[in-house]
């Protein structure tokens, strides 16, 4: 068990180091001069040179890389020159909104994928399977940001059921007292049901949009896993013991199929962070993703680059956690190592 975890940790560390190297290379080795980018095309050469020295760009690449990693690990992520604030505080302000959106989307995606996967694999009617297969293909084929726009057109403009792209709360609704930074949770903590309902109404469409791709991905994976497990001999043996199709499905097929599906949830997290950049723009959701698009449009790239490297690190850590978790749960891995 411990050996498995250590080996996995080593792989994660090299991957993170490689990711940092890659991010560093795109930043420094490309033709663009970061100092020139900050100051603009009309700045004097002296000003650019001064800034280069200030940013440490005149030092050798190896030294720069070591500084880059040290800065990243200590949370010194530089300064946004367009907004005049440290990147870290900018992101910290915006992350709760992204986390709230992401969590909600994740819950919707996983719950719906598990439900639809089980129905699709268990049902024996053709039209049900065909419907769900179409839904799965649609979810992974549709451009997320466009789908969000369609949801807004239908849910807000045509039916008037949902609020427009105005962010996390309606106009004039004050945010609840901040505890977690998640408006829905904070509103509940404050016992303010009206604010809670308003936050939910604003959250639903963007969360469905953001969850769509992970939903389709997990659905296909889970479904395939369920179908695979259904062909295992222990299912036949279970049936021969007098268990009904449903009992065998619930007791043996689903638990065996869920383990490899959950392993993929780390992958989904990466999709969510990337998706939030596109989806937050559509809904004017004031999260970190919207900050990234804003940074791109204003050519203020320090926020963008930090977010990108952070997303890689988050992805690596999440996958590490999932693997360790699976190793701890799966009796074959957990016991083998303690015995040997």
């Amino acid at each position: 068990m411990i050996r498995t975890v250590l080996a996995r940790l080593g792989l994660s560390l090299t991957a993170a180091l490689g990711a940092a190297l890659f991010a560093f290379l795109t930043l420094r080795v490309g033709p663009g001069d970061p100092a020139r980018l900050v100051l603009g095309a009309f700045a004097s050469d002296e000003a650019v040179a001064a800034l280069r020295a200030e940013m440490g760009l005149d030092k050798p690449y190896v030294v720069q890389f070591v500084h880059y990693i040290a800065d990243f690990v200590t949370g010194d992520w530089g300064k946004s020159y367009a907004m005049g604030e440290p990147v870290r505080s900018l992101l910290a302000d915006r992350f709760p909104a992204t986390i709230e959106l992401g969590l909600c989307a994740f819950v919707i995606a996983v719950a719906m994928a598990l439900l639809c996967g089980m129905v699709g694999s268990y049902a024996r009617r053709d039209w049900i399977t065909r419907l769900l297969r179409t839904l799965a293909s649609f979810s992974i084929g549709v451009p997320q940001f466009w789908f969000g726009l369609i949801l807004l057109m239908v849910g807000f403009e045509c039916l008037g059921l949902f609020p427009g792209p105005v962010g996390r709360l309606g106009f004039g609704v004050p945010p609840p007292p901040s505890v977690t930074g998640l408006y829905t949770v904070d509103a509940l903590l404050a016992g303010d049901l009206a604010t809670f309902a308003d936050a939910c109404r604003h959250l639903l469409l963007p969360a469905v949009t953001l969850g769509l791709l992970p939903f389709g991905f997990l659905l296909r994976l889970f479904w395939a896993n369920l179908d695979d497990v259904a062909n295992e001999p222990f299912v036949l043996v279970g049936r021969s013991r007098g268990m009904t199709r449903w009992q065998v499905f619930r007791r043996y097929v689903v638990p065996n199929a869920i383990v490899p599906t959950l392993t993929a949830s780390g992958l989904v997290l990466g999709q969510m962070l990337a998706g939030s950049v596109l989806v937050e723009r559509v809904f004017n959701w004031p999260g970190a993703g919207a900050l990234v698009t804003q940074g791109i449009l204003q050519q203020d790239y320090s926020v963008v680059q930090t977010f990108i490297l952070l997303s890689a690190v988050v992805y690596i850590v999440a996958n590490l956690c999932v693997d360790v978790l699976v190793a701890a749960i799966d009796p074959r891995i957990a016991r083998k190592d303690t015995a040997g």
Partner: protein
Amino acid sequence: MTGSLLEIERLSVSFGGLRVLDDIDLKLAPGDRLGLVGESGSGKSTLGLAILGLLVDTASVSGTIRFAGAALPIGDDRAMSAIRGGRIGFVYQDPMGGFSPIHTVGRHMHHAIAAAEPDISRRAARERAAALLAEVEIRDSAARLDDYPHQFSGGMLQRIMIASALAGNPQLLIADEPTTALDATTQANVLRLLDRIASARGMAVILITHDLGVVGRFCGDLAVLYCGNLVSLTTVARAMANPVHPYTRGLLDARPRLDEKPARLRTIGGVLPRAGAAGGGCAFEPRCALGRGVAICRNERPLLLANRSGDRVACHLAGAESEVAASC
């Protein structure tokens, strides 16, 4: 015959127009032990699963199967669930694949016991499970209920599989190649165990195998399947002494023997034709030492008829066979 436990009449199974079992008739009395023998693809596993009602959805089944006097509700999965486990038990060939890897052996046993007896308490079920494991000679059985399948050897798992098949006290056990995946010593042990349990419980057994040695040690009757057809139904003793059907003889000759000099293994020439591919004649004709090229064998399907000694054989040349065999 009165008091049959199992009566199969004109059972046919096909998959998408491909007939894998063709008009099977078979009877089994309580406590009987029938060896069901054939090459891979002869339809022997399909016959076992058909009795259990566990063929895949795409299979189309015709004919009747009567169990303990009543026709089995083949098309009704719910009604069949009540028969499976409680009346008919099943042992699968691959003990490793027969257990869900993430559930303890105790969970498997509990599921099997609860399926046969839904109202049983958790504690009583656990006691039953431990008793069943003890019956199949698992030492320290109560403690080992909490172990996972990968912590057992293949032979132990196969014994546990037998124990879970016994959970509902079935009158008939269908064992599909129960010893194929095991090494020779373990094989002998599992067979001996199965023998003891079946005798003690008066339980009938259908042993599906391709190994005539196993049949000889364990069974009273022998049914031979070839290409979805039942070609011979005799007692094991008579089949061993004087195999009437040329295919049975071929199978017997192909057995490796310890009492002979290890010459080349004898084989039956040719390959098993695709199920349903046979034309009008005997399916075995192209490979048959006696009938190859004989007009009647090539053109007419032989019927399963009783001969003088009471055995049933489907062969045009079965009468002539003994003389021919003697002259070889």
